[in-house]
């Protein structure tokens, strides 16, 4: 067991700290939109210094460093400790860019990667449909070739950022006769193409975190496809696993739990500080133990990545399931320790933490469902982690 990153990385950590100290003032102000000049200039500074798009080749606008998990981790640690703005995120950066690097054509890489990481193109992801959620591969939005163009008809749902996106990467059915996993293609097209309608989908938090997107005879150039016709499922799956674990990082859970501790010290009910109530305290301590287990699980995963070990498959599979459920419970405790103050929302003058406790409590219920529901995670864990068989398919009646 060696938990240090080693002396060779001390110099690198110093370098990161110096950057943070000398650039803290250049960060965009809170609330600066992704298209604002200060946000874009900050993003460019981060990339130029290797603190964003670190391993993306220089030819595509990145910093061009060799992949180094420890250095990436040190950057994340130092930025988080200093509460520094880490630049642009979103599905174009976290999901599409890795896909293009792995499976895109040279001209697609040239056309999209630099603009994506610099914020010139904001992307949304068109995967889920009203009739294709957990069973994503049954999606029915179709694309038919007409001359040199795909003609797209159908509907997507749960499309976050669609209302501010420039482009969409989208799964569509191009081979209706093929088995469902083999008839899907991965297309890229502009969101201002005629025939696209975006409707915000207000969720239980009161915000519109997602959209519905409707396609009516949307015409897209034939070459705007990643991978071959019918290979879209494989293209999408190359990165889906990547999204799951990142939905519930244990360090963020610990930060929120420490927020609960602060609340419990500050709030009083019937003249008693909440922290002095043994029932609430035991709930807190139980959660703290569970978060600790997930933090060390995370450390084990990081170590396995660095040392190229492969015996941590199960440890990785459980992160989304346990992490989102755990986070939901932490937010719930945050509400409960406030009692009736805990139901305050929006403009209530007694609001605590800017209303984040109720908001996150609901938002994480969304994440328990999104990105593969807890039930789907349990299927994956039992089948791929424990080697249990798939549920037999029921023969479709009358089909």
């Amino acid at each position, binding site marked *: *067991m*060696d*938990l*240090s*990153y*080693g002396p060779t990385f001390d110099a690198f950590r110093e370098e990161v700290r110096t950057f943070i100290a000398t650039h803290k003032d250049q960060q965009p102000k809170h609330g600066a939109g992704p298209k604002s000049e200060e946000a874009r200039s900050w993003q460019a500074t981060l990339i130029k210094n290797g603190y964003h798009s670190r391993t993306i080749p220089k030819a595509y606008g990145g910093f061009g460093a060799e992949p180094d998990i*420890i250095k990436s981790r040190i950057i994340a640690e130092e930025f988080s400790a200093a509460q520094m703005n880490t630049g642009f995120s979103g599905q174009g950066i976290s999901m599409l860019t890795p896909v293009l690097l792995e499976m895109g054509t040279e001209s697609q890489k040239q056309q999209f990667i630099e603009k994506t990481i610099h914020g010139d193109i904001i992307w949304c992801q068109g995967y889920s449909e009203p009739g294709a959620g957990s069973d994503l591969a049954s999606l029915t939005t179709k694309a038919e070739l007409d001359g040199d163009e795909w003609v797209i008809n159908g509907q997507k749902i749960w499309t976050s950022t669609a209302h501010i996106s420039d482009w969409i990467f989208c799964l569509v059915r191009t081979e209706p006769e093929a088995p469902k996993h083999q008839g899907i293609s991965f297309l890229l097209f502009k969101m201002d193409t005629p025939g696209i309608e975006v409707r915000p989908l207000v969720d239980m938090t009161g915000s519109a975190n997602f959209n519905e997107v409707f396609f009516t005879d949307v015409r897209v150039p034939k070459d705007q496809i990643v991978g071959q016709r019918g290979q879209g499922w494989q293209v999408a799956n190359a990165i889906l696993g990547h999204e799951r674990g990142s939905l519930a990082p244990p360090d963020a859970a610990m930060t929120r739990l420490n927020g609960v*501790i602060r609340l419990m010290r500050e709030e009083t009910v019937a003249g008693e500080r909440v*922290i*002095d109530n*043994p029932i609430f*305290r*035991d709930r*807190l*301590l*139980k959660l*703290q*133990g*569970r978060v*600790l*287990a*997930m933090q*060390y*699980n995370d*450390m*084990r995963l*990081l*170590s*396995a990545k*660095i*040392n190229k*070990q492969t015996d941590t498959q*199960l*440890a990785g599979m*459980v992160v989304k*399931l*346990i992490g989102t459920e755990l986070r939901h419970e932490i937010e719930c405790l945050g509400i409960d320790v406030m009692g009736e103050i805990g139901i305050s929302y929006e403009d209530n003058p007694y609001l605590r933490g800017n209303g984040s406790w109720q908001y996150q409590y609901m938002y994480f219920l969304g994440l328990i469902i999104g990105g593969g529901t807890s*039930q789907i*995670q*349990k*299927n994956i*864990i*039992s*089948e791929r*982690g*424990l*080697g*249990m*068989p*798939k*549920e*037999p398919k029921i023969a479709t009646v009358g089909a």
Partner: protein
Amino acid sequence: MEFGLSEEQTLLQDSVSRFLKDNVTLDAVREVAAGDTSDANIWRGLADLGIAGLIIPEAQGGVGLGMLEAVVVSEALGYHIAPSPFISSAIVAPTVLLAAGHTDKLGDIAAGNLRVGVAFSEAIGARLDAGVHISDDALTGKLLFAFDAHADAYLVNGPNREIFWVDASTTGLTRRSLTTIDKTRTICELQFNKANAVPISEDAEVMQAGIDAGRMVQAADSLGAAQAMLDQAVAYAMQRKQFNRVIASFQAVKHLCAEMASQLEPCRSLVWYGGHALSEQTADARLTVCHANAHLSEVAQFVAKTSTEVHGGMGFTDLVGLHYWFKRIGANRQLLGSPEAVREEAARLQNLID
């Protein structure tokens, strides 16, 4: 950076597991549980592997390894529900004696020739009807739920967290075996009537060091026992058929197994880190031990119940013997402090309690 077991630690676990697989079969456990034989032969075999002196320095005749190795061994012992005095004689007693600077008995302990039991229950959660008082280095009173009814000597707590050494054969000491649900290990009551006792320590920190070490290997024992129950649940579900298919193909059963695995797998990292933290005496060592112990009590309890359910009616019978693991986990949960009590200690360590 390397978070995990070294090659040597993995080899150690493998060699202990191999010994246990060959020598501590379910039939062997049943014999000990029925009282037909004691755990002496198993302990002899483990001592020959160096387990009795695992954390005792080489200068005192031990193997000189640390608490990470101790949790790794303890996990294997829990997996095979091995009857042995490992927690008391190999972990708590040496930790206390080393911390107190009493090294003369360590060689015999390491060789497996001297079994030391531990009676610290009154220091952890005093009962109104128990406890001892001291006059002229002699003890009078009684201590409940001492580890190891077959020990040659005991480390016992005084009224103020002092520690005394009492030989099992001392005049004035009566030992009474206490039956518990867990028949893989023995628990007893010690009654003292002006029994001679040798003072070992007056330092509450010494006792705490012993309790911390005990709680840590106990957590690892529960981890191993729970892993064994999960493995058995999956294996059983893969061969048991109902409605013309193995029950492992039903989501209702699969999801129970997935829930067990999801809760248990992160525990492995927590237990490893706890062992490492104790070895290195990191600032968060005590807090981690408390959390590892309490969290494993909860998760192992969940696995114990759920695995039994996956086995259906067979899980409830004596035939498959699953209940030995269930009961070992149940005993671990209460001994050395219930999870509620241990979490309160964790709260105190963080100054969450005035």
